[in-house]
């Protein structure tokens, strides 16, 4: 662990994965920034009646209507009071939004810090999470936009 911390302290100079940290509930998540097209600060989201529960709503994004997945609903957390931030993510099937409580910072992590999902996670989270990233001050759940694609979640 110490080695890792040291590695982190000098990581800025080395090649690593740049990730953007986001928060939903008490957990911090990391999304590779290469997959983020844009971050929308508290956009007005429009709910869609009768939509699957994981849909957070529709967001107006550059002239298009973006479907936003709510990270909170995916984790069965109650909806957040007040506005949420939305990450515009790229997936093979097209763009979609990921609604999170708040966007944190951009940081560089090394691939070796990332471990597979712990076996104790429930199946649903195993399917959603792309591993755990060990930071010096805690853990970060890695997210893979492909796994969060609304069409994929539907099936």
């Amino acid at each position: 662990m110490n080695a890792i911390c040291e590695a982190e302290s000098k990581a800025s100079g080395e090649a690593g994965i740049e990730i953007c940290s986001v928060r939903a509930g008490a957990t911090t998540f990391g999304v590779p920034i290469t997959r983020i097209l844009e971050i929308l600060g508290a956009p007005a989201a429009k709910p869609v009646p009768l939509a699957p529960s994981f849909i957070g709503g529709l967001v107006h994004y550059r002239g298009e209507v973006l479907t936003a997945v709510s990270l909170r609903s995916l984790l069965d957390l109650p909806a957040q009071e007040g506005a949420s931030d939305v990450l515009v993510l790229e997936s093979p099937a097209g763009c979609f939004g990921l609604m999170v409580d708040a966007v944190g910072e951009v940081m560089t992590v090394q691939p070796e810090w990332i471990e597979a999902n712990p076996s104790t996670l429930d199946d649903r989270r195993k399917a959603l999470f792309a591993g755990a990233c060990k930071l010096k001050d805690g853990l970060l759940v890695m997210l893979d936009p492909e796994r969060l694609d609304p069409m994929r979640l539907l099936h």
Partner: protein
Amino acid sequence: MDELTREFLIESQEGLDRMERCLTELEERPQDSELLADIFRSVHTIKGTTGFLGYTRLESLSHAGENLLGMLRDGRLHANAEIISTLLELMDGLRAILASIEAEGSEGEGDDRAMIERLIDLQRSDGEAVLPQTAQTDAARRASEPVDKALGDKPPGDKAPGDKAPGDKAPVERRSLHAVPKTARAAGEENADVENGAVKAATSAADSTLRVDVDLLNRMMNLVGELVLTRNQILQTTSADSGFAPLSRRLDMVTADLREAVMKARMQPVSHVFSKFPRMVRDLTQQLGKRVRLEMEGQETELDKSLLEAIKDPLTHSVRNAIDHGIEAPELRGGAGKPAEGLLKLRAYQDGSHVVVEVVDDGGGIRVERVLDKAIERKLVTREKAAQMSERELLQLIFLPGFSTAAAITNVSGRGVGMDVVRNNVEKSGGKVEIESHAGKGTTLRLRIPLTLAIIPALIVRSRGQSFALPQGVLHELVHLSADQTREQIQWLEKSPLYRLRGRLLPLVFLGRMLNQHEAAAEGVGCYIAVLNADGRRFGLVVDGLADPEEIVVKPLSPVFKQIGLFSGATVMGNGEMALILDPGALAVRASIAISSEDEEQAAEQSVNVEKTGQEFLLVEAGAEQMALPLADVLRIERIPRGRMERVGHTAVLRFQGMVLPIEDRSGIVGQKHEEGDEMTVVVCRDGSRHVGLAVSQVLDVAEGAALVEAGTDVVAPGITLLKERVTSVVDLGRIPALPSEEPEATLEVAV
């Protein structure tokens, strides 16, 4: 120059441009097989078409080039600088001939032998190492063949076996166009003449037009849509600041023009689709032993490119159907007293914001009994259910998947695909299919297609605090019910809510309930019933409130929402808020609203128009008095906060979208005491070209007025009408004073 040659020139020049680009790239990446394939295709297409058009020089040159390129493509030769420069020279040679064709109509004089020799030599010189002997000689033989042909001036188009160019097919079809029925041909030629005229004016056919990627146009359309929204937002925010008004007005104008121009760029005449029918009809009639005359009307009608694509297949299906099932064999027609030659009419015209394409035949029509038998046989409907269906509903059965009435399954149609495909394709693009059939007389199939995919007029309705867009095409009328009226007038039959609309029961659908919106509706504010007719399903959609109608830009929804099935898209409104677009047909089906029979519909219509002769009036109450307003002059009814009412002198005025509207207030409603947030009703009417408002206490009804003759004369009394058995005064809008008015008091009294 005929259209075919012109098209060939444009295509060839484009091909050569592409080839030039690719050749230069090839120098850097000589092994790139995709580049080679691309170049090969360009030359191949030219060769295929030239042979057919009889341009022998072009053909022999391109043939020699094609052989060399074929070897390069197959990897039997490697591209080197010499080959590439020779190919570039070949290209220049081809260009020169094309230019000569364009200028003089002929290939001109010239000797291509040296060029062809070089091309053949190149195939030998470099190829030896890689090339198997047989293939080489074979290629050489094939390469020299057309040269001999060209030199011997043999008829073109007589190509080596196995040398079929894909490009050959199109010209063949085109040529046979000239052997088709006269009317169609005349129309086609007329079209070609028009286009030729345009070409003469331009210096070069290829220079005057530009092929634009449809994706780019789509993107432009999208951006223009955004601009429209931004403009709307600007107009809303600047209405308060007078300095911005002229600027925003100009922005408004420019945006409108730009939108029109982009939409125009996407428009194509329906002749693009119609033009293939003459040949199809000819082939089908020969195949089926029928005689059919094809008439086409309105070919110049323009339609959005993507919509044109979308109706291509449905139309083809419909034409096939009409000839196969519709029009009878000549001997049968004779027996029925019709001319032996059947008539198939394709007609396109614009109707408001829609383009209607009709396929009309004078054949046997659709016999409803046969439709029913077949539907039962195919288990598409049960006998019990069918017994309750109206004739119109039965006719709709032909749109069900797996339905076909053809007595015999022919090559042409009758395999159980057809009308359902037609309907699906048309509905996918926001259109509608209507069918009308009279046994023994013929069938009319009507495809009603929106002019453009992108922008539709819609009414914004509100349900539990959310906005939804309701396409105006299906909207018939709006009924407002106050809180008391909601309680009293919405009646329940078991669990079905109903409303008596002019004495007829109208099934109601509560939007909030349908969408499972849990937020409680605001108490005591009443509701609106939007009376809709979605594909013959009449129902009232109950919503909490209404906002202004808007022209909305339709955005597709993610397929995630497909299973909901009630929304056809989403839109961003002028105020930046998003709204889901309701699909009225789907709402009706979800609520199990049946298709009303034609009789019912007529009855419903008639309850509105008792007699066509009488004029319709909007009955309003102002103060204690009831008055009538000619319905034709009523633009809209507005509920506005009383606080917005202002005064110029003694006249009440309303500022509205940057304009000022004089308000006629004969009963002093404007001046009444009111509290903050109170609303009042203003009927906005048209008087000639100006608009005027009328302050009223209440809008009562729409009714038919009957003329009253003054006693003792036979003169119809002006200014009054018999409305609902009461003599009612008609408001004379012309006497509402114009602004600014010098003496408003003088005119206020008389208007009755």
